């Protein structure tokens, strides 16, 4: 039972990260019906920038561990958000009225470009986050010892998701985003500035991804320029599981995938861990493409 709970919390912690990245995919897909392949690279960028700023600014020395990390994350989020907007401008906006295939190819190209840009700047080898930035003693929950870091990770993810949920449900801009996701043309006709909506989405999505990147760096300690690839695809799977375009769905999907993966790795095999995510992806797309919370898309003849 102990083992099970350990794995459960492990899964939830990782799942929280998947959820944050998944949100980026789902928000962009919801509004633009575009799979932003480059999103994984923004996640990676967050991780690397986090590392850089940790070295450059002594946040944790000045402000203490918790505040220091918070400021770090916010700073990185802000920067990557800007990159996100630039990305949209350069690679996607010119293709708004082009066939879907063009946008997919452009997204792939942007992904390749960003990944290699990161590699050129930071080098191809693993980089290591400083150890022990945040305290990591085991805390006892339900009779099981869970490392504090895992709990913090999970809490931060949940807090961000709650913040996003509030934003999307209760604010005007959030409603505009939801409207544009349902029907872009109708939203435009209702006076919603769809271009602005798209920009906001490309601010929030990458920001969340970047935060996830920093957290991964702190949690796993090691980062590499290819990490966006695997994380990105898994996060995308999570978004699909929850229902692509559906924000609570991405949150649910992320947590679910994290737990499924942790359980699979623990009880079945670690070698096939990555394959589990892909298998789930294919299964979902075949059996229930709209995901758990997604809406049916009808075809008009």
């Amino acid at each position, binding site marked *: 039972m102990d083992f099970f709970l350990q794995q459960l919390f492990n899964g939830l912690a990782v799942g929280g990260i998947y959820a944050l990245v998944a949100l980026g995919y789902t928000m962009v897909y919801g509004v633009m019906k575009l799979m932003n392949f480059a999103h994984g690279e923004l996640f990676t960028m967050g991780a690397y920038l986090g590392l850089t700023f940790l070295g450059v600014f002594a946040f944790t020395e000045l402000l203490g561990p918790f505040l220091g990390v918070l400021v770090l994350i916010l700073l990185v989020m802000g920067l990557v958000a800007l990159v996100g907007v630039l990305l949209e401008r350069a690679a996607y906006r010119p293709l708004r009225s*082009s066939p879907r295939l*063009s946008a997919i190819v*452009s997204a792939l190209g942007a992904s390749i470009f960003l*990944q290699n840009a990161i*590699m050129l700047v930071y080098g191809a080898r693993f980089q290591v986050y400083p150890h022990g930035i945040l305290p990591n003693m085991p805390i006892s929950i339900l009779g099981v010892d869970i490392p504090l870091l895992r709990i913090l990770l999970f809490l931060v993810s949940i807090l961000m998701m709650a913040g996003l949920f509030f934003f999307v449900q209760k604010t005007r801009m959030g409603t505009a985003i939801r409207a544009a996701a349902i029907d872009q043309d109708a939203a435009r006709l209702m006076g919603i500035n769809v271009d602005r909506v798209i920009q906001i989405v490309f601010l929030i999505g990458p920001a969340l991804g970047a935060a996830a990147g920093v957290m991964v760096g702190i949690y796993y300690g090691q980062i590499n320029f290819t990490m966006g690839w695997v994380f990105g695809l898994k996060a995308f799977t999570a978004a699909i599981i929850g229902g692509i375009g559906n924000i609570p769905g991405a949150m649910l999907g992320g947590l679910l995938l994290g737990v499924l993966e942790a359980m699979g790795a623990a009880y079945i095999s670690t070698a096939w861990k990555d394959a589990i995510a892909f298998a789930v992806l294919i299964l979902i797309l075949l059996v229930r493409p709209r995901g758990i919370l997604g809406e049916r898309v009808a075809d008009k003849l």
Partner: protein
Amino acid sequence: MNQKHVILSILLAFFACFPVLFDNPYWIGVLNDIWLYAILGLSLNWIVGHTGLFNLGHAAYYAVGAYTAAILATRYNVPILWAMPLSGLAAGLFALIVARPIIHLRGDYLAIVTIGVGEIVRIALENDVFGLTGGSNGIFGIPRPEFFDIRIRRPWQFYYLIGGFLLLTIWFFYRLEQSRFGRALNYIKEDDTAAEGSGIPTAYYKLAAFVIGAVWAGMAGTLFAAKMSTISPGSFNFWESVLVFAIVILGGAGSIPGVILGAFLLVGLPEIFRNFADARMLFFGAAMVLMMIFRNKGLLPPLVRKYAGVVRKRGGLA
């Protein structure tokens, strides 16, 4: 018309004599790679170019073919060239099984699923599935091909083997393109509801495109295995699939000359710019984005088909 034939003949003659004119194993090796990717590109062209299906996991079929040939050659002593049709068959069967349930998926969903398939195949290979694939070390010691008692092991020999197969491929694929089969795929790409409503079994043809693409990728895999004599899962990852995909899309989806040009550029140019090794991928990514913005049909888009007795006209409303 005649001008085109003259150019083609000159190019053909040039490349046919290349190893004789330039005894440079390095560049011959580069051309061998170009030929191989051209064959791969032409195989994917059926799926992506002609039928408009987003397949981003084509390396999976390449891998199935390569590994089938390698296993047959190393464990069962099948001469590698005899393994070629068998690898094609294996890849084709695999495609049939895999594509059947997913063929009806909408564009971007299909793309994601094919990526997933490609990854699962790679992971399976890494994990030494069925105990046959040798894990991440792969399979080594693949024997050289023999062609009428000539052992093929030098680059120039592979040049004619692979180049010859490429010519054969172009020959057959051109005819297939101009036939009812080629037309059917194009109808489906343009408007699959209209195609189905005109009497074309769209599900069958989409599957057929996948299978024929896979069969040829499998056979290309045999040539790859023979040339490298060692294969490992790392050669069949997502980026391989992206490379072949880019060759088709950037070269000219649905066009044989386009795909071949694509192979030349995407495989040849990086060799020419070896010095900028690391920045190459950067340019590659940027090129993909720019091409989509400025010339999204590719460098050499397909030409409209000609029909006997029909004069091709251009221009305004009639």
